[in-house]
């Protein structure tokens, strides 16, 4: 099992995180080859020592853990496999960590696989970075049967012998097909690899933008449809952006549901871009009289005519008045 870097998001994780990682790896009986990436570089303190210590002390199983701390071949005897690992020693390594592969002599009879972490030149990545760049011709240059790459969170093929497997579990709302591992089969040295994408994600990260078109019920129904999909709601992470104008009654209904969704979902983040526009119906529904009626009229005027910030405050005040009046009516 090759992990092409960034096993950990931070070089200084908490102890529980390390233990969880070790525990998660333990069911697999074969060797794990972990490559330090830019988030968990080789010289980033005691991280890898701590992981090895955790692996040694696992009570449930023995973990065959091989951490590629240096740029050198790692021999996997059972598989007649030689891994040429190019770990990042630091977060930003100006030196090409894969450079040594081209000069490494190929051992006969062994499948030769490169393991690296970084952005392929001329492709994707952070773009702005001049560090951790990998030459896309590396498989040919270093006579590799396959080059396993990490850093890109989505699953992506760069060539016939070079792939980003992506993260096995998505960790952000960016939609670039994360949540897979690649099963790579190579029959013999020099043979083309067969690559199979295996979905592994347990959680879904969904970004959704909903435009309110005057019907709060329709908007609520669309969110409910997402929640009732194949993925259980407690494994859904929803990034919900709401836009458009809404009357106070509709706003109250939506807000009531948002709290309910928040309880049901694994995670809910709402970008509330709804603009409150009190409708005649709102005001009628309030059945305000006298002072309250006059105050509501003034707030409605402020909500429609003031500066953006003042308008928002006036809308909120109006919403408060609406809710207060509702409560009073309900409680008699």
């Amino acid at each position: 099992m090759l992990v092409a870097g960034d096993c950990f998001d931070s070089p200084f994780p908490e102890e529980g995180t390390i233990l969880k990682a070790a525990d998660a790896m333990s069911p697999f009986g074969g060797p794990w080859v972990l490559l330090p990436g830019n988030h968990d570089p080789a010289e980033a303190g005691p991280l890898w020592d701590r992981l090895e210590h955790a692996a040694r002390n696992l009570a449930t199983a023995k973990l065959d853990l091989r951490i590629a701390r240096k740029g050198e071949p790692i021999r996997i005897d059972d598989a007649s496999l030689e891994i040429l690992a190019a770990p990042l020693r630091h977060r930003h390594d100006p030196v090409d960590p894969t450079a040594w592969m081209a000069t490494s002599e190929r051992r006969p009879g062994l499948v030769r696989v490169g393991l690296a972490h970084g952005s392929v030149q001329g492709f994707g990545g952070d773009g702005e970075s001049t560090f951790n760049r990998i030459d896309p011709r590396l498989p040919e240059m270093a006579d590799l049967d396959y080059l396993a790459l990490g850093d890109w969170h989505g699953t992506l093929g760069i060539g016939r012998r070079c792939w980003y497997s992506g993260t096995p579990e998505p960790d952000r709302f960016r939609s670039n097909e994360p949540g897979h591992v690649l099963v790579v089969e190579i029959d013999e040295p020099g043979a083309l690899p067969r690559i199979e994408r295996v979905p592994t994600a347990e959680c879904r990260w969904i970004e959704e933008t909903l435009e309110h078109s005057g019907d709060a019920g329709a908007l609520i129904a669309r969110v409910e449809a997402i929640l009732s999909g194949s993925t259980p709601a407690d494994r859904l992470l929803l990034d919900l952006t709401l836009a458009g104008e809404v009357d106070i009654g509709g706003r109250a209904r939506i807000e009531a549901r948002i709290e309910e969704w928040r309880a049901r979902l694994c995670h809910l983040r709402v970008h509330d871009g709804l603009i409150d526009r009190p409708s005649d119906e709102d005001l009628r529904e309030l059945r305000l009289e006298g002072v309250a009626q006059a105050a509501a009229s003034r707030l409605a005027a402020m909500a429609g005519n003031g500066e953006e910030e003042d308008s928002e405050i006036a809308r909120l005040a109006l919403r408060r008045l609406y809710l207060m009046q509702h409560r009073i009516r309900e409680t008699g």
Partner: protein
Amino acid sequence: MMRLRRIELRSVGKLTPGLRIDGLADGINVIGGDNEEGKSTLLFALRCAFFLNHSSNGALRKQLVPAGTSLTPEIDIDFETGGRSYALAKAFRRDGISLQTPAAALRGADAENELEALLDFGDGGRAKSRFASEHMGLSGLFWIDQGTAFERARPGESDQRRLAGLLAAEMDHVVSGSDGDRLFVEAERQHGEFWSKSGRPLSNGRLSEAEQRYDQLEETCLDLQGRLERLEGKLDRLRRARAERERTLGENRESRDGEKLHAVRERIEKARERRNELALLRQTLRVADNDVRTLEERRQRRAQQRELVQELLDDRERLEGERIDLGRKACAIEEAFAGDEGLYRKLREGLGMKKRRLRAIEANERRQRDMASLDSLRRQRDGIALLNQRLVELDGERRDHRIEDKDVADLRNAESEASTARAALDVVATRLVFEPDADQRIIAGEGEEKPPRQPVELLHPASFMLEGFGRLHVTPGSEGLGERERRWRKLDAILRERLDALGVASVEEAHEQALRRQRIEAEIDRIHTERRARLGDFTVETLEREIAGLQAALDDADPAGIERTSHGEENDPERLRVEIAAGEEELETCEERLRGREQERHSAREALAVCEAKSGDLGTRLERETERLNDELSAMPDADLDTSLGEACERRDGTASEHARLELALRDEDPSLLEEEAAHLERRIEELAGDRRQRERLIEQLATEIRIEGGEGIGERHDNARAERDAAERERDRVRREAEAAKLLYRILDEERRRSRDMLTEPVRTRLERQLPFVIPGAGAFFDADDFSLSEIRRSEQPEAFETLSIGTREQLSIMVRLALAELLLEQDGEAPPVILDDALVYADEERFDRMKTLLARAGRSLQILILTCRPRDYAGLGKSYRLEDCLLG
């Protein structure tokens, strides 16, 4: 409208035994009575009848009971309200109430309840110890006690609500209703969740909490970020330290420097050996060089010795010639000297004889002169002795005449003062002039006869016997007589005393003596002048010494000399002096010549001696040097010396060549420079080792720190804290907006509520503004919407608070407000309690009083007004009039 029709009291306070007022009119009823007659008791009784429970046993009931009695107060009141008539009979005892309504006759609690419902004072309950506004409903506002009319008319809360309800109804305007109130209360509560009453964020409010939470998380975040950065800094340092270690290991500078040091040390060893060898050669060379130099010096000394011997031989020959010449010359000089010496002796003897002769002549002449001088001096001394004797005599005379001119002047002054005093006495003395017709005698008291026609001055009482007349007693009595007499006597005594002291009888005698003394002193001065002239430059002592000296010189003179010269005829002193001068000149010339000869002789002798001495020394030296040369030649002949010198030179040159070669070799291997290089290398190796050890320690330390700190999960905690902080920031912004919204809502509701209340009070204000200028010209009213009271008036656009107005104005305003409210109630509710004024308007001036009466008269058209007053005449013609004394029972 509620109207009172009959009031009857029994056993009530000072109105005992009773009072009945019947037939009260709809409008104004003026009830007059003197002070202490019971007007206030009547008003108190009305309050008790309506608002004090009949079974009450509290302070109010006790106040109602006639003083000093245990009578039960009883009050009957007939009244109308809502167009119906009621008869209330209340005795303040158990079951002492009955209320006759149009429908039924009620008793006890039913009657009280009905009364409460009719008068609408249920909110506050019944009064016990005192009447407050909540105990009396709106009646409390319109029944004004004595001395309280000037207080601000401020309805109680329930009355305010009732008034507000009535006013809202009038305007057909929904103020807020119960929902409105609840909305406002809720808005106020929500506002209070965020803000203080002064509009600042509440310290424990939701906004502050949200801000504090954000600040705390921000602080945590910054702290973790700082720790993370420090940790990453340590990582960076560790990476650099390791890279440095690898680099230094790669460079292998320590080992290379060690090898260099070893090589340098070998070179130093070799250089030291060569340096020793060179030192040895240098010593050998020094010896060889020394040998050559010694031999060369020997050869050189030998040649010099030869030259010296030759020079000495030449000098000896030259000196011998010189000695012979000098001997000849010395002999010639000796001979010339002997001749000149004989001539000199001869001249000197002749000259000596002449000089002796001249001295004898001169001594004789001098003796003659001294003897003459001695005689003259002796005469001079004798004359001076005579003068001295005369001076002694004159001095004795001067001592006998001691009165001087100043003494005479003092006496004359004293005499003048005494005369003046006497003249002053005479002026005031009694002067008697006896002019007898005949020759009668005038006998003074002491028997002295006084001549006639001559004045007699009297200073003291005196008596006179006048012949033919009898005794005359005279007592002088002029002013100041005694004083002037004492002064005269005192001055006269002073004068006498001075005369006695000088030993004279009168001033003239003293003057004579002073003139004599002057003559003596003039003689003394003259003798002194003469004496000084005679002495000249001498003093007596020097004169004596001169005489003694001359005498001694004469005594010492040589008598023989005097004798010889006295007998020689050729001994002319002038001739002798000329001859002596010529002889001395000749002798001097001869002496000069002789000294020249002597010098020549001495020089010749010295030159000869020197030449002989030189010749002797030269001979001795020549012998010595010749002997030394011979010794040298015999020790080493010239040929042997040349051979030795050649061998030594050859040896020295060989050694020098070897030395130069070694020195050249050592120039490139300077041991001191090599030592310097070795020391430098050692220091560098030590520094490199120190750096290496320090770096290793640093690496170890950093690795340990990173291991410890990295194990704390700072990175992950920082990520989590940042996420929490971002969420808290969003929450804070949301809460901030919510807080602003709550504030805005509360403010808008409050403003609308106030505007609404302002509208509510408009009818009252309108009424007041119609009436106010009638009483107080140019005044406008500001009616407080919060408590339905007049808070200020405005005159000439200037606000004047109610409390700052005069008592009279306040009283008038209060009554106007009550009348306006009562009229409003009547118009809107159809009901208004009667207005009762107990001794009101007592502070009004005449004009204001008349205008207030006009207002009361107009109000009396619609309202029942009871005016309790001690000045009923002031209200004459205003309405129905009662006299309290006429209404008393029994």
